[in-house]
């Protein structure tokens, strides 16, 4: 019986999310027994011809060439799953999306055709239809395994969309905001890491991206009561998931109020 085929492709990224597959030390050989690894350059020289049943995408789109390449990949695969903050939200390299706006006039008139692709780092879903997005910078390898197995079995993956706060409560962690006065993005960040940072006496910095319908505004107010400035909030929301809708909008709101404040 032919095994389902798996492809793994890289766009602008650090390789960390695809490394999560090889970090499944106990499960890797078992996975390789139930899927045919058909195109995974980091692991194998062998490339089998498309189409593939399942394709994992790491990384964001940052060049005109990559914007074309992802379309081709979409055509060659059944299921397309994006893994990690780069692929699902543009990644840390999306910080240039603002920087370029500042430098806009330097480039815009010379070669406007390049603006969109070369200047922006965008998630895969801005370019093609995506069947499932797995969050995290990096993804949790156990969540990755769950997603793979679920698609192979033809069911929806069981990936919670609640917040890191819920994980802290389930773990019995004392709240770092209440107990230590440490600013934390846990209330608006999607679970998946098992509340890692608060477990290490650190506030969450949002590497799993926004949870479903996060209340970023009220968390921002809470941070300000704890002494954070608007600039601190802009930095906090603009990190690994800066270009996700919820974090981008909140950071822009904070940035706007800095600018209004500056005029006054």
């Amino acid at each position: 019986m032919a095994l389902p085929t798996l492809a793994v492709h890289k766009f602008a990224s650090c390789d960390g999310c695809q490394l999560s597959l090889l970090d499944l030390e106990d499960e890797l050989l078992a996975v390789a027994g139930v899927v045919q690894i058909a195109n995974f350059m980091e692991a194998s020289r062998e490339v089998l011809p498309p189409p593939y049943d399942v394709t994992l995408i790491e990384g964001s789109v940052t060049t005109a060439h990559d914007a074309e390449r992802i379309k081709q990949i979409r055509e060659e695969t059944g299921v397309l799953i994006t893994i990690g903050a780069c692929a699902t939200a543009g990644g840390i390299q999306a910080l240039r999306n603002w920087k370029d706006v500042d430098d806009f006039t330097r480039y815009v008139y010379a070669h406007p055709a390049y603006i969109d692709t070369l200047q922006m780092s965008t998630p895969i879903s801005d370019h093609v239809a995506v069947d499932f997005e797995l969050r995290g910078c990096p993804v949790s390898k156990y969540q990755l395994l769950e997603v793979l197995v679920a698609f192979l079995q033809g069911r929806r993956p069981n990936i919670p969309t609640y917040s890191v706060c819920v994980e802290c409560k389930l773990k019995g962690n004392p709240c770092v905001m209440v107990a230590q006065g440490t600013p934390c993005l846990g209330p608006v960040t999607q679970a998946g890491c098992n509340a890692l940072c608060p477990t290490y006496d650190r506030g969450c910095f949002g590497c799993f991206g926004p949870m479903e319908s996060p209340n970023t505004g009220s968390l921002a107010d809470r941070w300000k009561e704890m002494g954070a400035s608007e600039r601190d909030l802009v930095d906090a929301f603009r990190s690994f998931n800066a270009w996700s809708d919820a974090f981008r909008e909140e950071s822009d709101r904070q940035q706007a109020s800095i600018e209004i404040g500056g005029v006054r």
Partner: protein
Amino acid sequence: MTNAREISVEYLARVEGEGSMRVEVVDDHIEHVEFSIFEPPRFFEAFLRGRPHTDAPDITARICGICPIAYQMSSVHAMEDAFGVTVGGPLRELRRLIYCGEWIESHALHIYLLHAPDFLGYQSGIHMAADHRDVVERGLRLKKAGNAIVGLLGGREIHPINVKVGGFYRTPTKAELETLVPELEWAKEAAIETIRFVSGFTFPEADMDFEFVSLSHPDEYPFNEGRIISNRGLDISVAEFNETFVEEHVERSNALHSRIRERGAYHVGPLARYSLNFDKLTPLAQNLAREAGLERVCMNPFKSIVVRSVETLYAVEEALRIIDEYEPPAAPAVPYTVKEGEGHGATEAPRGLLYHRYRVHDDGRIADAQIVPPTAQNQLTIESDLRYVLERHLDLPDEELAWVLEQSIRNYDPCISCATHFLDLTVDRG
């Protein structure tokens, strides 16, 4: 009649990131050799500007998922240099320990899954497992033992969350660290078996004339501290890096090439570290190296797999020593006062010297950043190796020639994701 051959590999496999190789040979004359990096740049240095200095370890870690500790260590040491703080005692030891974990994890990955398949003629470690399952399982378990150190100390294996300027957010208890010991005892034996296993491979002949560059420390095999030395008399402090090395933007590559001013190409990584610091290895690691047929200086890049195995054994032994002697520190981090200044940090990433420099404003925000990763430094050397190997294997058919050339690139365990973090936002829009 002229006989022209072009061998090109458009997407190199079993390396971290997107790179390609192309050689042209006309009538047995080498016309062109090129190792290029086409991975898109991610402009880290540009967007670090203006960020809080405390972001540096978390953000620069994202340059590379395979060696995040290296980025975290070089960045925190550079920041501490800027602020004039020294982190000593158990915190310094814990930093060595987490680095041991990364070396073990990264070396085991490269030895077993990326490089050994070249010597045994398999497309991948997974193909290799079909015939040598116990060998691949040993490699995966060894990798996991390294990852367990990073996971415990750092919170997770990829992009750990526990490293900060001044130390850690939370330090482990002695009992927590001791949970690692049984598996590390196993790993010590496994590392010895690894050395014996890889030293039995057949190595293409190569006797290069490298200028090796690495850190050197009077008392220890280098991780986080030391002077930058070479086998041609270089001996400088980390702060003098830019006076000695230059980075150049070469058109066909999205990474900067480094060279030593006036002299040219140099070599960083396990071979350089080993050859410049042999006497700092443990007696056991030295003995195993001799038993494996290595001299004190190794100029055959194909034998880097043996050297990586020796370093893996060293890292396991060093981890066991640190855990054995560990007494928890009074506080998880050293306090410091932010001030305006410039700082330099260089540490030994699994793939070689990783240099960071930051200028910091008086409010603690980053004014300017420079990052020079090992693979960028090795690019010129990789190309000259390609030329050397090509000259000696011209009689091979194309397919086999391509493979040995690929293998000679993989000798460096090149990390292309690292090499393309890129200096600045200067895209050629011409």
